[in-house]
């Protein structure tokens, strides 16, 4: 039953899924790295981005790249409002408080989406050139998968360069290391946080496009579970470190797919449970994740 080719095709499925998790996980890590804030609403901002694309393509028939641009802008706006209204007043409150606030924002966005667009699951089609299929033996890849896979690494390199060599990148690292000291260096914390949310929410919109492109349907509640899994990937890889998020994303995607593919069929439905069991195990062995720096918290 387990021919090499079967194993290979499951592995490729894992990489496909992993690249989507990695995209979302980078968005999580951007915000968490600086603010120690878990943005539960990150998954739902992704859904907002996808719905914008859908509305613009179906209602106004705009070409895809314009809709993607607008969807990034709208997702960023949603992210910034959430930061301004729900997170900024709680900046020096404990981690749990901002966690709860992000939970409330997530519930708020989901219900607003359900009211504006009906709860119906709706078809979502990418233009032909994006969903063309290439087959290598049993392995099948569509252009959107390849684009996702490549863009994860492109974004990782771009962001890492930005963090390492630009002014805003240094300011971000300073905030992440010690927020009070950063203030005394004359760094405007709010601008740094806003930039982090712009990048995070923008990435969420992109990953939303790729997730919907892969599964061809969208619904208002689609963002929450992938968001949670992407967060586990970010924690697995070492939250706060971008390369950790990408690594965690791929490990989680491949592990989940191999589990679903190789294990006997009775326990395939334990797939989600397995993902979180894996997370708990890794956190036991290496509390800060695989690549995580010893996270002294805010000294």
């Amino acid at each position, binding site marked *: 039953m387990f021919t090499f080719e079967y194993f290979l095709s499951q592995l490729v499925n894992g990489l496909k899924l992993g690249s989507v998790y990695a995209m979302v996980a980078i968005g999580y890590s951007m915000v968490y790295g600086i603010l120690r804030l878990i943005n539960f609403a990150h998954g739902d901002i992704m859904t907002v981005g996808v719905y914008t694309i859908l509305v613009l393509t179906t209602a106004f028939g705009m070409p895809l790249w314009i809709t993607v641009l607008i969807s990034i802008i709208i997702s960023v706006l949603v992210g910034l409002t959430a930061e301004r209204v729900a997170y900024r007043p709680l900046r020096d409150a404990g981690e749990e408080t901002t966690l709860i606030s992000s939970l409330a924002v997530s519930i708020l966005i989901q219900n607003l989406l359900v009211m504006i667009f009906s709860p119906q699951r709706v078809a979502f089609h990418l233009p032909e050139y994006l969903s063309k299929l290439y087959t290598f033996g049993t392995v099948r890849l569509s252009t959107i998968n390849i684009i996702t896979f490549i863009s994860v690494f492109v974004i990782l390199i771009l962001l890492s360069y930005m963090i390492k060599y630009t*002014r805003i990148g*240094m*300011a971000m*690292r*300073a905030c992440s*290391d*010690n927020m*009070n*000291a*950063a*203030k*005394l*260096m*004359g*760094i*405007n914390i709010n601008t740094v946080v806003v930039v982090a949310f712009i990048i995070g929410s923008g990435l969420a919109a992109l990953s939303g496009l790729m997730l919907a492109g892969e599964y061809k349907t969208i619904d208002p509640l689609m963002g929450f579970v992938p968001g949670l899994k992407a967060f586990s990937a970010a924690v697995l890889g070492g939250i706060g470190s971008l390369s950790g998020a990408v690594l965690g994303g791929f490990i989680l995607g491949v592990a989940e797919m191999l589990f679903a593919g190789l294990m006997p069929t009775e326990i395939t439905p334990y797939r989600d449970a397995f993902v979180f069991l894996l997370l708990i195990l890794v956190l036991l062995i290496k509390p800060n994740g695989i690549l995580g*720096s010893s996270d*002294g918290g805010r*000294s």
Partner: protein
Amino acid sequence: MLKINNLCVKYDTIRAVHDVSIKINDGELVAMIGANGAGKSTILKTISRIIKAESGSIFFNGKDITKSTSHEIVAMGIIHVPEGRQIFTKMTIEENLKLGAFLENNKSKINENFEKAISLFPLLEERLKQIAGTLSGGEQQMLAIGRALMGSPKLLLLDEPSMGLSPLMTQQVFDALLQLKKEGITMLLVEQNAYDAMEISDRTYILETGKITMSGNSKELIEDPNIKAAYLGGE
């Protein structure tokens, strides 16, 4: 240079600073001494707007800065070396210093400040690539002051630089401060180490439970009998 009028600061219900007025002229080194919890650090934090004042006003070169934000204050040249040094432990010494000059744009000014800091604290130069967290307490204090210099300060606020340092290291730090005083940088030095502070400062304010109880030239105060009894160990 700096004028504070009837400053009051409250933490929830506790009144930490009560009706404090201070004046610092150009080029002066003013010390502020007092027991732990007298409100010394609170005053510094209010100046650099880490915390909000309840009432009162702060003027810098005649400009009201009570309501301005931290980064505006740093841009004006008021650099605060916080209590407990607060350096970036996960970044290299060079990066810490670079961050000190975050708001400085022109390259030559940064290099100039860099040279000044290195000349003041030579040991920093050999270990530029080292992670700051690995430095000893004294070395971290030097790095913190060096980092402050990178921001070409007009007014330097120093919050207990000698805390947790060996006598030898404290001496080195105070020598450095004297050196800076010669170069005409105005400083407000908050210290528990009363004797050293009064020795190198022009004027001194004495703070007790949030209120200024005495102030005057350091030279006179050092001889004053009850100051000696209260702060100088009654030699």
